[in-house]
């Protein structure tokens, strides 16, 4: 169970990239917090800012864009931190796993070497202990005959096994927070179930917070404690998974849930939110979702709704949120 005090507090995070001299607002006023042992889901469609959020937290985005706001990690702000100090946090205290394990593992080095490299730079373990720890980690993530497999190269592993290796490397230094960017999107459902179970079990055993980025609402429903729904660089709704999925209040969340073909008469038309998400260089002046929204009212056109508390732990950024009755009828 989770400890109430947050280890990570993100406050009004703004990330802006520049293209041809024009600013592209990738993230606007993103605020959330993660406690130890908590699994937070970030969900949204491509381009909504889920991955940029993770990259901004771990300090990968600041090389290419402008990141402002506050990222409080155990009380320290990561944003003004110089690169050298940030490297003490990256990988050691906060670890990240990516969607495509083949491109994030070095194809020329054995898996054992890559694991030991991580241990060498992030722990004070002596050489022999590092090897033992490497075996222990592969064992922990469920790779059979771990000691022999240390000598294997990434291409000798299957997709699911490679993702396990990535998790083993990410968790080798005992991080307190894991940022997982679509860790199972490239995998089959059967392997996805195994990997998600593994992440949940390890989060629980190591009392680690997890931010899980995914576009699959089913994955959110099955793994997360809390969820934040993103649209055009902003969080539009957040709260406990059960409440948000059962009674979505933002029209976009409702639309997203209705697009999933579950509990529908077969071969009937699927609901789809009309229109397409706006380009980051052409965001409307008011609510970014207003042009596609059926519940759009006058203020939505001019003003941007902020996230406001509507119930215990639930926040929605909408002037005209969906009520329970409408949600069910929709």
């Amino acid at each position, binding site marked *: 169970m989770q400890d109430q005090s947050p280890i990570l507090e993100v406050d009004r995070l703004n990330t802006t990239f520049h293209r041809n001299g024009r600013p592209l607002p990738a993230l606007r006023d993103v605020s959330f917090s993660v406690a130890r042992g908590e699994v937070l889901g970030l969900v949204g*469609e*491509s381009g909504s800012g889920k991955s940029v959020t993770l990259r901004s937290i771990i300090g990968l985005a600041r090389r290419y864009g402008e990141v402002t706001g506050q990222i409080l990690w155990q009380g320290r702000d990561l944003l003004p931190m110089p690169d050298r100090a940030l490297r003490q946090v990256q990988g050691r205290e906060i670890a990240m796993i990516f969607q495509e394990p083949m491109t994030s593992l070095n194809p020329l080095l054995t898996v054992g070497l890559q694991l030991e490299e991580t241990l060498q730079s992030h722990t004070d373990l002596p050489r022999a202990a590092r090897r033992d720890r490497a075996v222990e980690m592969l064992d922990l993530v469920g790779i059979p005959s771990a000691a022999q497999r240390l000598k294997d190269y990434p291409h000798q592993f*299957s*997709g*699911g*096994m490679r993702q396990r290796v990535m998790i083993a490397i990410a968790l080798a230094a005992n991080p307190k927070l894991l940022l997982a960017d679509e860790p199972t999107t490239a995998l*089959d*459902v*059967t*392997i*996805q*179930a*195994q990997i*998600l*179970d593994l992440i949940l079990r390890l989060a629980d055993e190591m009392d680690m917070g997890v931010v899980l980025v995914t*576009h*699959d*609402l*089913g*994955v959110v*429903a*099955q*793994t997360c404690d809390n969820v934040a729904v993103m649209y055009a660089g902003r969080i539009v709704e957040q709260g406990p*998974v*059960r409440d948000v*999925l*059962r009674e979505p209040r933002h029209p976009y969340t409702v*639309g*997203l*849930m209705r*697009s*999933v*073909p*579950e509990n*529908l008469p*077969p*071969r009937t*038309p*699927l*609901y*789809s*939110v009309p229109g*397409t998400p706006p380009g980051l260089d052409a965001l409307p002046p008011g609510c970014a979702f207003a042009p596609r929204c059926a519940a759009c009212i006058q203020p939505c056109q001019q003003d941007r709704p902020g996230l406001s508390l509507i119930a215990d732990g639930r926040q929605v950024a909408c002037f005209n949120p969906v009520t329970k009755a409408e949600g069910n009828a929709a």
Partner: protein
Amino acid sequence: MTTVMQIRDLHLRFPLGRSLMDHVKGRPGRVVQALNGVSLDLIQGETLGVVGESGCGKSTLARCIVRLYPPSEGSILFEGQDVFAGDARADRSYNRRVQMMFQDPYSSLNPRMTTGQILAEALSVHQMRPEPEIPARVSELLELVRLPQDAQHRLPHEFSGGQRQRIAIARALAVEPEVLIADELVSALDVSVQAQVVNLLLDLQRDLGLTILFVAHDLRLVRHVSNRVAVIYLGRIVEIGDSETLFSAPAHPYSQALLSAAPSLNPDNRGNATRLEGELPSPLNMPSGCPFHVRCPHASDICKSTIPALTPFEGCGEVACHHVEEINAHA
């Protein structure tokens, strides 16, 4: 109910060639056994869903059907004609009548041709319309897949993923096919865009009377669009039947495990899934007997030695399992 296509005992083996070690030891080269005796019928106007894990042979089956791979054994009959028979291969009309759409619209559309050129090429290659009528037909096709008319003059990279899949659909429909093979057509798209493309496909099927083979790994989606579903494991159909029946009460232990691995939208359903241990064995090194016995919780001696045949099971479609009766009696 007319059967448009009969696939009978289709085998496909990809030889890997003999390595130096194979020559030294005098053993034959290794072979990937991609399809191992697939038999199924496609019925006029239906959508047949094909599901399975990656590497199980679903895409290989799709590619065999459009003659991209000639099978090692077995036959595909289209309206009673063997499509791989000598003279049939020269017959281009099969290529026109059975069209394939691919997963990745980035690599299946020529990046240097405009949408208009892509569609016009399909029309002129198969001589669908006399030259002067082609522009009008291109406009009609764009309307059919709900793309704006100015799309004609744009290149594939100017479109979003969903729009590109619409171009791929328009190109397939240009030649007025009877059968569409959709290989992971919407897998790369976001859910809301996915919904639009699926709706389009359902509408077109209804209006044009198309028969669709829908290969996908998204089980919810396959359940939604299909009339019947085939579950494939290591190049063999392990269960086939009516979509709703199969999804609500799968009979084969593999179908049961596969379906329960799909994450439900209901957070209260957590943890009640049957988790499948291990991974798909390599098709280079097929297990003896039932290919699923290494991962099956119900496996017994007979499963290790004898391959179960696909046989009708009461209340379901056809199931290939020695223990189907006991397994489903307990349930």
